[in-house]
């Protein structure tokens, strides 16, 4: 082997280096996105979820019946005449009152998705701010704030919810308030834990040293770094919200007629399985299940993507 440098090769390398594009750095987010896209289950779930949302937005244009119109010729005869059919416009069949299940499922999808997203939204906003504040200030403030959370967590939330709904009457807004009130507790605990480890990092020290006020530090430095964890847990919260809402509808305390939700449709359908109208259960249950599945996979995928150690 020759020990003399190969000038040709070196010349070629120098030329390459000169003409090469500057290496584009990859941010952490792009890294995460890349990992996420490799997770087949998560990507499929995103597609499915998008389809469900599109369905709820565009579906109404194909509807032959509204969600409250009664088909007088079929009312009461769901078992014989009410099965799904393209011909009579009842794509998903009818319910026991002769109302079109297609439109009702669409409307129920809208309501349930809204409940899930808004509930999770409230949890994120309130929980993050509360937890970050407690974690950042530490000491007595943290102690008191977290004790409060502990106390609130030991109250069986269903009882509180029932009380709320009984006292203030049933309405969609009340439902949001009720669900939001309970959901932020878990989030605040998680955020506090994360804050404890972030606040010891150098960039926070630097901000403190330069005299940035505490709340600005929390909002501009700590919270953005929490986003990973928060997003993951938020996605896992949404199915929980939807399940809570369906449980409340099952108790009869949720959405009011003629509006409906997945929970209401499923509990109606569950009651009539023995009477030959199985589509009344299967259709809303199908949407319910695939949406929850999707949220689970997306949440898992996000967690794997954002923190590979935690797989």
């Amino acid at each position, binding site marked *: 082997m020759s020990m003399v440098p190969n000038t040709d090769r070196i010349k070629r390398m120098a030329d390459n280096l000169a003409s090469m594009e500057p290496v584009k750095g990859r941010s952490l987010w792009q890294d995460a996105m890349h990992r996420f896209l490799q997770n087949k289950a998560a990507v499929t779930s995103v597609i499915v979820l998008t389809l469900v949302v599109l369905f709820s937005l565009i579906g109404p244009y194909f509807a032959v019946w509204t969600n409250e119109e009664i088909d007088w010729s079929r009312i009461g005869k769901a078992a014989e005449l009410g099965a799904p059919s393209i011909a009579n416009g009842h794509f998903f069949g009818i319910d026991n009152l002769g109302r079109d299940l297609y439109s009702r499922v669409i409307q129920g999808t809208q309501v349930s998705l809204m409940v899930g997203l808004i509930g999770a939204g409230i949890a994120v906003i309130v929980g993050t701010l509360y937890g970050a504040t407690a974690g950042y200030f530490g000491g007595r403030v943290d102690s008191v704030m977290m004790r409060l959370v*502990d106390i609130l*967590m030991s*109250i069986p939330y*269903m*009882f509180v919810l029932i009380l709320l709904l009984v006292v203030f009457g049933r309405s969609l807004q009340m439902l949001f308030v009720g669900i939001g009130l309970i959901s932020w507790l878990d989030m605040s605990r998680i955020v506090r834990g994360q804050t404890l480890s972030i606040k010891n990092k150098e960039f926070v020290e630097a901000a403190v040293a330069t005299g940035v006020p505490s709340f600005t530090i929390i909002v501009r430095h700590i919270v953005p770094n929490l986003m990973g964890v928060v997003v993951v847990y938020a996605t896992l919260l949404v*199915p929980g919200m939807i399940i809570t809402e369906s*449980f409340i509808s099952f108790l009869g305390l949720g959405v009011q007629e003629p509006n409906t939700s997945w929970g209401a449709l499923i509990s109606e359908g569950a009651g009539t399985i023995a009477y030959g109208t199985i589509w009344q259960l299967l259709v809303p249950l199908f949407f319910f299940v695939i949406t929850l599945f999707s949220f689970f996979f997306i949440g898992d995928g996000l967690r794997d993507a954002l923190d590979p150690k935690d*797989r």
Partner: protein
Amino acid sequence: MLSFIIRRLGIAIPTLLILVIFSFSMMHLAPGGPFTSERPLPPQVLANIEAKYGLDQPVYVQMGNYIWGIVTEFDFGPSFRFKDRTVNDVIAQGFPVTLTYGFWSFVVAVGVGVTLGAAAAIYHNSWLDYLAVGISIGAQVLPNFVMAPILVLTLTLWLGLLPGGGWNGGQWQYLIMPVIALSTSYMASIARITRSSMLEVLNSNFIRTARAKGLSNSRIIIKHALKPTMLPVISYLGPAFVGMVTGSVVIDLYFSTGGIGQMFVNSALSRDYSVMMGITILMGSLVIIFNMIVDILYAWIDPKIRL
């Protein structure tokens, strides 16, 4: 450890107090009272009833009397709806029911969940793993108010194997379906948590060391991996317990077991104030005690945590 328990109990008292005050106020805010009925009572009779139950006094006086009664005599008052029974009677009747099937649901959820999750982790990426993950996600999305009627239809009507409901003193035939319906979704969550936790533990350094030292697989898992795996599972147990308490409402409604959950909903709807309060306090206390036990368990397993 003793000082930890004392500290926790010390916090429990103000917690319960806040719970009582909150629930009491909420209930009295609700329209309608226990004696609102379709056939209105003659005024003197109504006045008498209200005096008998102390409803004619201002709310804070009632609350004070109520708390005093509990503290001094453990007396939760008379039931407004069941005229010949006290709250203590009502709760003593329903609580053992909920406790029994709740306990068994817990055992099943933890037992089956941990086993399933551990098996999935140990045989990672095999068909067992995919099956376990599939089952657990599937079980998690089926709400128990859908499972309950399906169970009754299949096992009682079509197969004729089990009675369709009731309690009958808690014989095993009456326990099976409630336990299945209640434990399923928690079993699923526990399985998933166990699986991901054990995967992490199995990939950690100290396990690698143990393998390098030549320890057998089963010894590694049981003696070394299990304890740290259980940490996230144990922190989940608290919320799982609370969830089972609320889920018991559905179980009671479908299987007519006569437990506390159904009693609570019924008493809320009929404004039976004292029963509502009694159950709320009972459940709140249970949750507090349970969380305390969970924390102790956590500290026992994780030597880094000192109580």
